[in-house]
């Protein structure tokens, strides 16, 4: 027999879920454990002769964690990063994380610039490659930051925060590159008009530089898009399990 959950249980679990900052999937597992225990204890107390109301009240009193127990659970299940920085003030932690973010951006920018400059086609590099590189580095930093928050810091209070921006930003390098191609074509037209005898080398050079710029922009778009897809899928799986527990489906 699989009895229906006692009334009021989903709302009790949602209240615990809202106050508990334990990262997923541990939070879901704890809520699942709590739901099963609350249900079993309520039926056990009803079998002992208590009214359903009294049984629910007694079960909740025994098992629903108060603020002290929730804080204890948060400490127990905190990520390694949170344990490491536990003694830091919020302000100090925020500053350190901003510094880390800026360093990640600069490192990516330097590495990408170095790689591109080392490549042969950069002899003909378009000026617009550099804004593409800047936007692309910002996008790659966003992907790294989201991975850090979800899987290292494991702060899942607002797990979907920034995901839409990441998806929108994924198109930005290609958009900047397309603007660059358009302006390059305008410039090329002017140059060909002035020196028609140099039309062939000018067109070849423009094709090489714009093709290279578009390829790099598409590569950045893929980094952002794949990052978004991975985060989205990971969250969808865990959120589905979480919702299933909170709505008490079997």
């Amino acid at each position, binding site marked *: 027999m699989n009895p229906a959950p006692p009334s009021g249980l989903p709302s009790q679990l949602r209240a615990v879920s809202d106050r508990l900052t334990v990262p997923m999937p541990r939070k879901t597992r704890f809520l699942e454990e*709590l739901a099963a*225990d609350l249900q079993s*204890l309520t039926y056990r107390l009803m079998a002992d002769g208590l009214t359903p109301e009294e049984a629910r009240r007694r079960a909740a009193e025994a*098992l629903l964690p108060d603020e002290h127990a929730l804080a204890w*659970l948060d400490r127990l299940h905190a990520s390694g990063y949170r344990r490491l920085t536990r003694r830091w003030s919020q302000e100090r932690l925020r500053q350190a994380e901003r510094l880390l973010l800026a360093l990640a951006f600069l490192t990516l920018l330097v590495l990408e610039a170095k790689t591109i400059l080392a490549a042969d086609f950069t002899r003909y590099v378009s000026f617009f490659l550099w804004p593409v590189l800047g936007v692309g580095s910002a996008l790659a930093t966003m992907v790294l930051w989201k991975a850090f928050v979800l899987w290292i810091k494991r702060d899942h209070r607002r797990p979907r925060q920034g995901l839409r921006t990441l998806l929108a930003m994924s198109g930005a390098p290609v958009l900047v590159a397309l603007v660059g191609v358009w302006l390059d074509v305008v410039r090329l037209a002017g140059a060909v008009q002035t020196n028609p005898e140099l039309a062939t080398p000018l067109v070849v050079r423009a094709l090489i530089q714009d093709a290279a710029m578009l390829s790099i922009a598409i590569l950045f778009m893929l980094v952002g898009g794949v990052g978004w897809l991975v985060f989205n899928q990971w969250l969808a799986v865990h959120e589905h399990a979480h919702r299933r527990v909170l709505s008490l489906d079997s």
Partner: protein
Amino acid sequence: MPQADFDVQGFARNLNVLLVLSTLRHEAKHGYQIGLDIEADSNGLFRFRHGTLYPILHRLEAEGLIRGDWSREGGGRRKRIYTLTANGRRHLTGETDRVEEILGRFLRVIRGADEARA
């Protein structure tokens, strides 16, 4: 035992751990069952309220003293069931001896003080 080794607050916290471990000595149990059994075995003296049992269970599991598994009875909801591990059993035996010794000394001290006054 040297005086410096004894921590009164730690000793009190450890009692909860021993209560949980001892109730798992003979069979695996669900969290709510552990709480009910401790309350029944102590005639209501020890009661876990407001979910304080869960941090204890999760800590003991992290320390390898108990093992938590999911079980599904009769095709219904999954339930977490806890079993005492070999480490937990050793810990329970050692700590029970230690508590016995500490309480023995404590009783000797307070009874000795009473007798001295009498």
